[in-house]
């Protein structure tokens, strides 16, 4: 078996222009990225740079235009069955209670109802929602919905976890709590995690490695930084360590120019009258 859980090899991804107007858009170009089994890798980059595109390619929801994705050494065809995906926006089914949502994946696998219910309840308890199983998503707060989504993904025990800015909609306190919880759960069962974020603090506090992407179009990795902060970490406390600040300065130096570039491009797109990627 390969050392790497997920490999992106010279991935390129272009989208066709809508209705034949204008030329196509290259979201990702010549990107290679390898994630070891059990490694926590964050990808940061300016908004709209194609981070989510990369993640969708890793999940198999999107086929790359060029290059290859490998999952534990095997080329990926169709959906990535060994990956769990935590989406940026609400992905819970509003017509199912929290418990029913968590047991969804288990049911899809044909697990008997009772057993699935029991396991789902266990996961709900692990994310601190043991008493809220019968609530519908609209009755839960944003943080609780994220917890439910996390339990839903973890219940299937995936070898690779893909997270697309999962906490960007949460307030800062809830967010730090969730980050700590994710780190705790991850430490208990080390899975390969590919974590997309635009928040550099979050990336450094949580990861083993931070990858900086360039501004779009044709996003590609600009640099990689190993985060050698000791674990276990507390995301709020780790921020005051000198090494954290040092790393932050280093990475920010690379990221800053890209953020400015990305911002300028967005302005241009807006002014150019094209709203495709606004």
């Amino acid at each position, binding site marked *: 078996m390969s050392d790497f859980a997920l490999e992106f090899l010279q991935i390129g991804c272009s989208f066709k222009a809508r209705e034949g107007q204008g030329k196509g858009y290259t979201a990702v170009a010549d990107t290679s990225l390898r994630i070891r089994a059990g490694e926590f890798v964050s990808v940061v980059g300016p908004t709209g740079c194609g981070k989510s595109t990369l993640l969708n390619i890793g999940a198999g929801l999107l086929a790359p235009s060029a290059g290859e994705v490998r999952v534990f050494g095997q080329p990926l065809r169709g959906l990535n069955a060994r990956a769990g995906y935590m989406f940026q*926006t609400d992905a819970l089914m509003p*017509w199912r*209670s929290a418990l029913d949502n968590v047991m969804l994946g288990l049911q*899809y696998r044909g697990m008997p109802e009772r057993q699935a219910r029991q396991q789902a309840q266990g996961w709900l308890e692990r994310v601190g929602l043991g008493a809220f199983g019968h609530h519908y998503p609209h009755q839960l707060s944003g943080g609780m919905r994220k917890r439910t989504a996390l339990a839903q993904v973890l219940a299937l025990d995936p070898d690779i976890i893909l997270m697309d800015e999962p906490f960007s909609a949460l307030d800062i306190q809830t967010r730090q709590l969730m980050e700590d919880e994710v780190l705790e759960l991850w430490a208990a069962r080390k899975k390969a995690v590919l974590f997309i974020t635009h928040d550099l603090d979050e990336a450094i506090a949580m990861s083993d490695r931070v990858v900086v992407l360039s501004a779009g179009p044709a996003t590609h990795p600009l640099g990689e930084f190993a985060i050698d902060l000791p674990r276990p970490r507390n995301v709020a406390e780790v921020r005051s360590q000198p090494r954290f600040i040092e790393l932050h300065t280093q990475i920010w130096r690379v990221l800053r120019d890209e953020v400015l570039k990305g911002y300028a491009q967005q302005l241009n797109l807006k002014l150019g009258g094209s709203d495709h990627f606004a």
Partner: protein
Amino acid sequence: MWRYIQPSEGNLRIWQVGVLLAVLLAWQFASRDPQVAFFLGEPLLVLGRIWSWFIPFGMGATAVFPDGLAGRADIYPHLGVTLLETVLAFGFGTVLGLVCGLWLALAPLASAILEPYLKAANSMPRVILAPIFALWFGLGVWSKVALAVTLVFFIVFFNVYQGVKEVSPVVLANARMLGANQRQLLRTVYLPSATAWVFSSLHTSVGLAFVGAVVGEYLGSARGVGYLILQAEGTFDVNTVFAGIVVLTAFALLLDALVGRVERRLMRWQPRAGETEKL
């Protein structure tokens, strides 16, 4: 004094009843003129007619009803037929609309081919199909069911179609990532999402099923409330026509309330306006 009579939240019911009474009184008063009564009927006689239809015992001559009231209780078979037609049409129409809506929404090519015909079929005034259905299915229950099904079908069909098209792409992608196959996607994503839309159209479709049944009867039948109205019209018995209208309205309201109940039961997961409870 005026403070208590003035319309407000508290005495809404009283005012509602008051409006009804005022209309009835004006009507009764107007019908004292026999010429007006010929066209407009008389509320008390309408009431008497409804009594005779529903109550199995009569009443002797009184001041209000000088001829007394016959207790025939003979509307039940007619009402039963009309309700049976409504329920059958509602059931068939909903299931058919659900199946076709799901199919066409998930098969873009088929929907592209059939689209102009569906549009045409929907914009056609479908009541004119009644003679054809009478020809095909006879004057019994089934020709009315067929007519009402055509009314219900399109309502449900378009709602299901819309419902499937508007499934959140994130929910769909999530279900796929959790390992759902096509059949599981249909059962756990498309169907519940479409059901929400069907329920939003249920009130309309129950009403239309009722309309279809009654219009069908009115156009040719041997039974049903529509048939009673047709008979009364033939003999210029305007009181019976009005009685039929009142009975139909009452039962339409009843069906609507029933649907509302089922809806509340099954759509518990949907947040209602002002009711969203955060924890």
